[in-house]
């Protein structure tokens, strides 16, 4: 029994599942951290995940290519980001309540749209999802080969996004202004840059990434759209963002850690099956997120202007 619990860690399947579970979270945490680095909390994330999952999948179902679906999802995400950004940045409305509103709106729009497109279906219609990668040299490596062989191009895109976001935030003038607008908007204004423009842009870009997280689920992990398939993944990303202290590298780490925990939980369930109710294991990822948040909260270095609306010429 104890050996079985340890043996899980040696299985390629477990590590492949870890990466698969982590991928949507990587997109989500990156998206949330871009928004928050610019000073805007985006609680629309949960709904944007749903809308991205639904829109990307529907686009492919209606005949677009898989990458076309990815683009559609990103655009839908950016559109909801524009709503959230417009209401919270120039109008300065409560970021909490607006975010919940965007989540409700995006979720109900996705569900309503699905019901309009498919009024009476018993089994959800399917698409042909992203195929697994087959890289000539990589597949022959021991242990790594089988893990990489179960991933799709969409996962590679997630890892690329980590690198791009990390580079842009740390090394480019755009990244510098973006960080500044979340820490000290007055300084950005003094430079002659538009605080409103930068923040809305950041929220749109972040929301587009969040939507990709949803689209991964319907275009790569599964091949259909289900009601309730997001099931709190978006909220988990908000917790992981604090855990990652708003850094892309740590975001990747946090998402992988969470993925490993979730994958482990699923496997240990079958070993311990019957002895412990399955719900106990299903609670673990949520409890882990809460614990991580509570543990790092004291030292968390929040962007200083997070949730503080900025009005030109007003202190």
């Amino acid at each position, binding site marked *: 029994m104890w050996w079985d619990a340890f043996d899980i860690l040696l299985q390629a399947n477990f590590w492949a599942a870890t990466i698969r579970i982590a991928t949507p979270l990587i997109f989500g945490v990156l998206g949330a951290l871009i928004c928050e680095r610019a000073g805007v909390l985006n609680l629309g994330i949960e709904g944007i995940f749903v809308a991205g999952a639904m829109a990307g999948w529907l686009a492919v179902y209606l005949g677009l290519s898989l990458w076309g679906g990815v683009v559609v999802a990103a655009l839908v995400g950016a559109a909801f980001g524009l709503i959230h950004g417009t*209401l919270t940045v120039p109008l300065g409305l*409560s970021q909490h309540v607006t975010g919940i509103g965007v989540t*409700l*709106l995006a979720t109900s729009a996705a569900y*309503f749209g699905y019901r309009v497109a498919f009024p009476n279906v018993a089994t959800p219609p399917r698409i042909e999802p992203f195929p697994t990668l087959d890289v000539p040299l990589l597949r022959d490596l021991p242990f790594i080969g089988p893990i990489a062989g179960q991933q799709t191009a969409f996962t590679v895109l997630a890892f690329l996004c980590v690198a791009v976001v990390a580079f842009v935030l740390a090394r480019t003038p755009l990244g510098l202004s973006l960080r500044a607008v979340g820490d000290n908007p007055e300084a950005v204004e003094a430079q002659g840059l538009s605080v409103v423009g930068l923040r809305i842009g950041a929220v749109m870009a972040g929301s587009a990434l969040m939507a990709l997280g949803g689209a991964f689920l319907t275009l790569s992990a599964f091949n259909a759209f289900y009601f309730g398939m997001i099931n709190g993944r978006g909220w*988990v990303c908000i917790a992981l963002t604090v855990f990652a202290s708003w850094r892309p590298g740590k975001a990747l780490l946090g998402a992988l850690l969470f993925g490993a925990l979730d994958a482990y939980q699923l496997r240990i369930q079958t070993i311990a099956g019957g002895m412990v109710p399955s719900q106990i294991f299903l609670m673990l990822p949520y409890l882990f997120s809460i614990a991580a948040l*509570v543990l790092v*909260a004291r030292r968390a270095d929040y962007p200083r202007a997070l949730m503080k609306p900025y009005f030109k010429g007003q202190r």
Partner: protein
Amino acid sequence: MIRFVPRERTPVWLSLAVSIGAGCAALLLTMIPLALSGAPVFSAFALMAEGAAGSGFALAETLTRATPLIFTGLAAAVAFRAKLWNIGAEGQLYAGALAAVAIGAGAITAPPYLLVPLVLIGAAAAGAMLLLLPVLFKTRFGADEVVVTLLMNFVVLLFVQMMLEGPMKDEMALGWPQSAPLVDEATLPKLFEGLRLHSGLILALACAVGLHVFITRTVWGFRIRAVGENARAARYAGLPVGLSMALVGAISGGLAGLAGASEVAGLKGYLTADLSPGFGYAGIVVATLANLSPLGVVPAAIFVAGVFVGADSMSRAIGVSNYLADLVVSFALLCVLVGGLVTRFRIVYVRRSAA
């Protein structure tokens, strides 16, 4: 250049006009997806209105649906006033429902005038305890209560499922995961013969009035408002900020717990894991529509309930998905938020040269 100048006082007619205007704007916005879906827009709205308030029966259904929404709306209103972002009313509702079943399903034998209050107090205590934990995390560790309360919703729902499949499962329910029914002495009486409307509504209305009096007429109510307006100033003035937060948490969680008890003891009679179709989240919408005023929560809850009940009946009649209700409600939330700018600020156009 446009500036927002804070208003010292908002005239009542303006708040009313903005609420009605926002409601109309939400209905207008809903026409877009409705038209895109190819449904007959105006007859859909007419059917919704008829389904929500077209008959005594429809009205009773709307009020039945509004009952839990008044509780969760009050829970959100009192918390948001103190800037305690309790998004966990859904979980607190289930905790209350679980406590109601634990007390009322035969564990204690007592006459109704003892058992009903016991069920309600137990449910309120369970909801309150569930929110005090995130409040503690917030005041002690600085952990953001939004995420903690959100994630706890999922934990509580899993816990309820676990209890319903395990220790609290009704063996007579033919394998269906539901709790044993409440004993007759623990149930809230119905208000009218043949209707589902129950005395939970009276309790909800009493809570709204009580909360209004508490917030506007008592010292603790004043403290809560002061902490919400400016926590640093309140601390500087020597107000017990931590204690006020805990009190707000207990009230807010307790009200959400009562929502669960009222649904179980007044309507369903037993607990299932699908007791609430998102009443906790809808409470946030209700509180926002009511501009966080306890008395305003009552009409706001009736409006939201009417939208849901009306959409259900419209959906049965012409087959348009009842997710339309969620669309109307989320549009209403966003419209009221924007409308709130007009009530809180005077919007002044300043010429650039003058500024």
